[in-house]
């Protein structure tokens, strides 16, 4: 019966980010979500368990207010959650997150078969945590996986690379980072959400951790990105379409 660990991050939903007239980021009306590809990781773990038994442990590092995210993860098929929380864990870098996850997985879970991570988070999209985590744990990592199977003591995965598909195999325990097309995450039903509140959550504070990783970067500036475009509009009739083609030729981008 495999023990599956799914890591997830509770992040700002970028659809709610606004840009002030001064070009600053406006996060005042944001809501939060489980990072998109982490939902794929949770889903894949839940499907593996539903298909062949075992258990799913969801692990997250974040600010103490992320309790809703923990319930969200538990409503997606996880049996238990490990919630590593501190007010200072809001904007951790990839190396810090990986170090904290590694310690908790090693000391609190110990016997596990597979760790599943999203390929990157939808807020920072560093695409590092899963791979750094595997290095920290000293176990193999299969990154950018679009298909996954467990065999006798091994994991077999399809990695999607620029030059094709690479089918790889590694002994367990191992870490995989999954691509969004590995599955379509479920929308939890009402009962799933209600039962999530009754599942066990182990909360771990900063003081409970032996590691105290340092940040590698300082932020010089953070601003809303801008796309300066001319925004010229044309209609759909033939005259306008000819004008449109004329404009493209004038700009020298069309023969």
């Amino acid at each position: 019966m495999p023990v599956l660990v799914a890591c997830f991050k509770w992040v700002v939903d970028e659809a709610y980010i606004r840009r002030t007239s001064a070009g600053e980021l406006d996060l005042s009306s944001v809501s939060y979500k489980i990072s998109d590809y982490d939902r794929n990781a949770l889903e894949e773990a839940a499907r593996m368990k539903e298909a062949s038994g075992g258990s799913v442990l969801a692990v997250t590092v974040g600010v103490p207010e992320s309790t809703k995210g923990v319930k969200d993860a538990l409503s997606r098929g996880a049996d238990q959650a490990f919630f590593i929380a501190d007010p200072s864990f809001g904007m951790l870098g990839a190396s810090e997150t990986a170090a904290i996850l590694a310690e908790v997985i090693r000391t609190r879970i110990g016997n596990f078969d597979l760790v599943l991570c999203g390929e990157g988070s939808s807020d920072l999209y560093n695409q590092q945590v899963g791979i750094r985590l595997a290095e920290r744990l000293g176990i193999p990592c299969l990154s950018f996986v679009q298909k996954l199977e467990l065999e006798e003591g091994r994991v077999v995965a399809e990695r999607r690379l620029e030059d094709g598909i690479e089918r790889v195999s590694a002994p367990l325990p191992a870490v995989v980072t999954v691509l969004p097309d590995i599955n379509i995450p479920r929308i939890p039903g009402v009962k799933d959400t209600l039962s999530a509140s009754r599942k066990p959550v182990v909360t771990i504070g900063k003081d409970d951790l032996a590691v105290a990783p340092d940040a590698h970067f300082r932020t010089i500036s953070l601003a809303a990105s801008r796309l300066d475009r001319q925004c010229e509009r044309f209609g759909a009739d033939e005259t306008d379409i000819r004008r449109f083609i004329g404009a493209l030729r004038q700009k020298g981008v069309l023969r």
Partner: protein
Amino acid sequence: MAGIWIFAEKTEQALELLQAGQLLLAAGMGGELIAVTWPGGPRPEDLGAAGAAEVLLLPPLADHQPLESYGPSILEEARKVQPNLLLFSSTARGKDLASRIAEGLNAGLCSGCNALHWNSESGTLEMERLLYGGAAVQRIAPFTFPVLATVPPGTFRRGTGNPDREATIRHLPAPPVSPVSVLEHKPKERKGQDVMAAKIVVCAGRGFEKPEDLAFARNLADTLGGALACTRPLSEEMHWLPEDLCIGLSGIQVKPDLYIGIGVSGQVQHLTGIRGAKIVCAINRDEQAPIFAAADLGIVGDLYAVLPRLLQALNETAAP
């Protein structure tokens, strides 16, 4: 100061990284430009011609070993030499290797770095990247060196090489055997023009109702001598086009002279992939689609009505 290392799977990516490295050295970041490669990777003579002073050459990998197995060899050498900066082209393997090596060096890694600036006065390396699906730009600086960055292909222009220049070659030891083994490699079928290199990109979005209808977009791409691409839903959800044609934050980032989005709504993640386009055009029947705010020229109309007219007008007015 031990310079800048570069690693890329493809020669053109390596040349872009060498150019980025040269610019930093010229700005006063000390040291030499060093390229890491392996048999089957970019050729040492090309790397030398493009400005690498030294090439660190890895031995061939044993059968069934993935490219990432080189990690320990590169890491060991980097530990010894302590380069200031290691640039990796951000292909899947490049990102994977960079993360392993960064962890081994206990170093920072700036992922998806799209601008690098050496501030010689303060001695800081300023690195730029996108956050929140492209909604924000973050400038960061490392506290310590070495530091790593993965750079999306196409971020820097390739420099003009000098074929007379030659790099000294130093051989690196073989890595230990990786527990990961490659069972099979299914190469991608190459069809049509390379989107990354195309001067004109025609991108199909959700507005297409049936997969057959993509013929309209393909037709337009052919007429213009451009390449066809798509948005994430078309490749990921509908599977109408292969994943490597998907433009966006988690797909490819293109920098054509002309981008034409057809039936593309303009999610922020997609717009991130077309930031580098010189001219952005959009055809969408929803005049409120966010793509229009990110387009130079927009046609508000049903693509099924607009495309035939556009094709006809292009054919009639084609330059002789």
